[in-house]
């Protein structure tokens, strides 16, 4: 496996990396939700600075974060422009047909821009600082209440970790089959859609067949080891909750308080 890295995990040793995956996931989801309730510039300034602080704490270069924004920047700018052009109110600078550029509109456009950038930054912090395996464990932990409704959460968790575990193997295998095809003169990434589809079949077919065999062998092994779906399992990797995780969640409560105060006192 050469240049293909799974996910965007960026190994590093920082406070943010060491936080529990569950705390990070909950905090990130909560933060994104909170962003939709801010309606004052000061609120955005505050959460913006908070985000920059968190990014700084990951000890990852800013350029890595900027890279995450790049594919979406046009969509974000377009969205912000729309907000500017279709929001009236305040001092009107330009008015042309249905479009207006007003002071109110410029503010709303700026808020929209900020909100999207912050969503991307904070979710980038999450995925850069958390291993996919830890993140799936965290997702599983959050889904646990569904167990009471009869949802097979543990089976799902098992499947998530098997999938993650096999992605590198499958990538390897795919590369090998593609190399074998290249050796026979096939060039990938060229030609019409129909031509590319034809090249796909000889790659996919052996891979499917080997995946099926592998699944079967693995199921045999698990049966031999007496795996019972539905039984309580213990885990090799354990997520541990520290004081710093509770502090991280408390900071979310603090941010909420700031946003509420700013929204109600500033007009």
């Amino acid at each position, binding site marked *: 496996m050469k240049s293909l890295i799974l996910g965007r995990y960026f190994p590093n040793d920082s406070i943010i990396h060491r936080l529990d995956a569950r705390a990070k996931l909950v905090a990130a989801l909560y933060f994104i939700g909170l962003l*939709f309730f801010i309606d004052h510039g000061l609120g955005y300034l505050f959460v913006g600075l908070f985000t920059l602080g968190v990014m700084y704490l990951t000890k990852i270069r800013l350029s890595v974060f900027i890279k995450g924004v790049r594919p979406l920047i046009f969509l974000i700018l377009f969205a912000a422009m729309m907000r500017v052009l*279709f929001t009236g109110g305040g001092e009107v600078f330009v008015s042309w047909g249905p479009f207006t550029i007003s002071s109110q509109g410029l503010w709303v456009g700026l808020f929209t821009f900020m909100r999207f950038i912050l969503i991307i930054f904070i979710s980038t912090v999450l995925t*850069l600082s958390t291993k996919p395996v830890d993140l799936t464990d965290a997702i599983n932990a959050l889904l646990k209440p569904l167990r009471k409704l009869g949802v097979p959460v543990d089976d799902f968790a098992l*499947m998530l970790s098997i*999938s993650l575990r096999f992605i590198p193997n499958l990538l390897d295998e795919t590369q090998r089959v593609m190399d074998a095809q290249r050796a026979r003169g096939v060039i*990938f990434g060229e030609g019409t859609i129909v031509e590319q589809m034809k090249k796909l079949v000889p790659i996919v077919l052996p891979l499917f067949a080997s995946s099926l065999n592998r*699944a079967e062998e693995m199921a045999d092994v698990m*049966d031999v080891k007496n795996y019972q779906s539905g039984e309580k399992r213990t885990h090799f990797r354990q997520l541990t909750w520290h004081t710093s995780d509770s502090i991280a969640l408390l900071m979310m409560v603090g941010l909420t308080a700031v946003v509420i105060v700013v929204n109600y006192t500033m007009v």
Partner: protein
Amino acid sequence: MQSKRTLFLIEVAIFTAFALVLDLLPFLSFRIWAQGGSVSFAMIPIFIVAFRWGLKGGLLSGFLYGTLQIATGTAWIMHPIQGALDYPIAFTVLGVAGLFAPVVQRALKDNNHKLFAGYLALGVLAGISLRFVSHYLAGVVFFESLIDGMNIWVYSLVYNGSYLLPAYLINIIVIGYLFIKRPKLMLGESKDKQQAA
């Protein structure tokens, strides 16, 4: 003696991993739009699971795929509802193709290729149509939060249609070809059963 449930769980997991691999490999997808929305082959393994294991397998594989995209950080989420619609929901609904699993399998067993292709096309169409609806609504939710009274409905329709329509044709052709070449893929017969027969 093999527990069918264990095999089911593992097969769905490995095929879903395979879906992610097909999406990750740069040569194997055509990016039409910068913000995702690519015509990749990721749906093929999900449909294969759906036709092998029926509705339950299809839905599970799709949901797993959507969740994996979020866990590996390849998902683009800009709005909570849009995120849910674009990832877990959009891929889960692909699994409805599994409703056609019994008829597709019977047609293949009877060597009735015309009927087989017809049911296969219907199943894939059902899955992709629902995925389309899900992305379409996600697009509307996303833009509704920005603009009032613009033709967002049309925009979302054109954008999502532009990559799902070619994806539909590609999926039918590739899956049909795979199954006709290797009926074993579809019928889900284990090694033991074949040896016994």
